[in-house]
């Protein structure tokens, strides 16, 4: 049995107020009233996700179009970890497919 591919979709842009400062970016989540302070690559991930549901693999491909991701660690594993972290906080939602 193959596990279903995990898709992720970002919280709608009008629900998040994003305020880039210098080393950190602020994200205010209107639904919960909670402020998160985030660092690279989180803002870039959220921007690259746009409005569509994406898999971690597709997101890595999108990011490497725009950025040089280097070769230090497995990019997909890192992006998955960040997506899961964002999903725990409700900044991104897990979904089953890209319908």
């Amino acid at each position, binding site marked *: 049995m193959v596990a279903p591919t995990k898709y992720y979709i970002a919280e709608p842009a009008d629900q998040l*107020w994003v305020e880039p*400062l*210098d*080393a*950190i970016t602020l994200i205010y989540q209107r639904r919960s*009233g909670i*402020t998160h302070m985030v660092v690279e690559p989180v803002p870039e991930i959220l921007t690259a996700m746009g409005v569509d549901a994406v898999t971690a693999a597709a997101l890595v491909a999108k990011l490497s179009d725009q950025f040089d991701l280097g070769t230090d660690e497995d990019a997909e594993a890192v992006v998955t970890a960040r997506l899961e972290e964002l999903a725990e906080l409700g900044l991104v939602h897990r979904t089953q497919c890209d319908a």
Partner: protein
Amino acid sequence: MHEFRVQVGPAAFRIGSRWRQPVEQLAALYADYPKPEIPDFTVRLDAPSLLRRFLRKSVAINGDFMLPDAVPLPFGQALLAAEMGMNLQMALGWRRHLLLHASAVEREGRALIMTGASGSGKSTLSALLGQRGWRFMGDEFVLLDLDSGAATPFPRMISLKNEAIAAMQVAAPAARFGPLMTATPKGDIMHMVPPVAAITRMAESAQPALLLFPSFGHLPAVREVAPGENFMRMTQASTNYVALGEAGFRAMTRFVKSVPARAIDYQTGDEAIALVERLWERLV
């Protein structure tokens, strides 16, 4: 029941106690302050038990807002209890401004704000600057207007601790002081009545123009604090940032993006004041 009312900045307090002495002491210290009709907050200084009204008297702090685990103070520290009670109401209950744990002084309509943990010197520095031509706005809380970002004064009794007590008695020999309280949880404490201008102008706000993070006990130094670090530190220094939701986010973001911030180290009051004057001239 003995009662006393006082207006401090935009907040109106009613302080009551079965004992007369603490209420009389408060009334004497706050004699020049306006007396409000309608209180925002009530603080009560109670005996924790009937026995403690008379024997080994101790003062429990009660009020509209309370925290569990609070422990009574000895009767001799009733003034400290009143101060903590008033602070607690603001910290937990004030929603009309973004509350910063900071001191502030004003010059030419602009505010210098100083923040840091206990012992950083923000309280003493604001008192010293208040004696050197700046208008004292407060030594514990700064209230930021949620729309305009202006700093509103909260000029309560200045709370001097340990070495600062002697330093201020020298710097402000004509000021009125409260009784010396020893062996409090924070060491020796003495209250000082703010300068007259601080009281008469307590409704006058000022636009924040410089934010300092003072640190006492190091060789004089200045370090820039970027908005990101500023935001992280200020959200820890605000008791109501989270509760204010969107308005809090807007106000704090505007603050860190528009107000230059520096961390300053110093070893004496004079050193600190010199750094302050130099930075004010350069950055404001």
